[in-house]
């Protein structure tokens, strides 16, 4: 079990619910969810989660901007980006901005578990 406090940022309700369900099944506590970039930044400040999962496409500001802001304000933050785009150039950009990695959509429990284990090695 991965007992960590997670902030889930995803604008699509069905995808957000599914990710929350997967995280809970792995032992995590979803401390908050956000469906926009600005709400994500606020929620991060408020909850200081152990990790944030971050969708790239958000209705107000794009996920890369959110990532930059979070890493600027909280350099030790742990962020996993969630996207369907598997372009290597994008992955490199995401990593260079300080994210731990990418969870590729569509994903199952296994992909989320692996990403979390990499984020919190025992």
């Amino acid at each position: 079990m991965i007992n960590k406090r997670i902030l889930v940022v995803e604008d699509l309700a069905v995808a957000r619910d599914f990710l929350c369900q997967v995280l809970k099944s792995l032992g995590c506590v979803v401390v908050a969810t956000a469906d926009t970039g600005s709400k994500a930044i606020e929620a991060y400040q408020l909850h200081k989660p152990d990790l944030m999962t971050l969708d790239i496409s958000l209705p107000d500001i794009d996920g890369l901007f959110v990532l930059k802001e979070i890493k600027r304000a909280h350099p030790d933050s742990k962020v996993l980006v969630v996207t369907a785009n598997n372009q290597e150039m994008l992955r490199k950009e995401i990593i260079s901005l300080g994210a731990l990695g990418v969870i590729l959509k569509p994903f199952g429990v296994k992909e989320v578990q692996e990403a979390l284990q990499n984020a919190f090695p025992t």
Partner: protein
Amino acid sequence: MSLSETHKRSIADSLVRGAGNIAERLSRFDGHPWDSKVQTDLYGPEFLQRLSAESNKIPYWSAYLFAQSNLPVAVHLLIPPKDALVLSQVLATAYGKGESVKLFSPQDAVKEFANIAAHIFCGEFGRLSRSIWILSTPEISRGERNEIISNQWRSLKGANIAFVSTITNTGFQFKMDYELGLYASEKALESYFPRES
């Protein structure tokens, strides 16, 4: 300035590869292999006239995503109602694995699938143009194909070229037809392919 034939062909090829990758991801959804058949057509400014002559009364589901740059480029997914229902079943199966079966409305299913499909294509186009594309979240609507496309094409100021792929994805239990389009101005697309000096 107009886009070179080589670049047009490369973009059409990237749509075909994108459709193949979408089928591969659908396989991840339901655990069975999916096949894809794709036909890609290229249209110029006559596209709107062609659409206005169409009399297809089927109320399609539509998802429209525009590039988050200031360039007039957009990705569009159109899916007939019966295929949207198939999609709802595929997603319910995938997202219900090991847990209570989650029901998807066709609208949610189209939104989720369009988000995935468009970003997969985006990855292909990004590789081709050596650039990073971020798309907006999908805007979902429903209506007749010609009206939906005409409105979206007009809202994209300067659009004068359309790459339209008609895709059939066939899996073990499901078969699904949909259309994936790239609408843009040639000038905008050309800016992704700087001329070699």
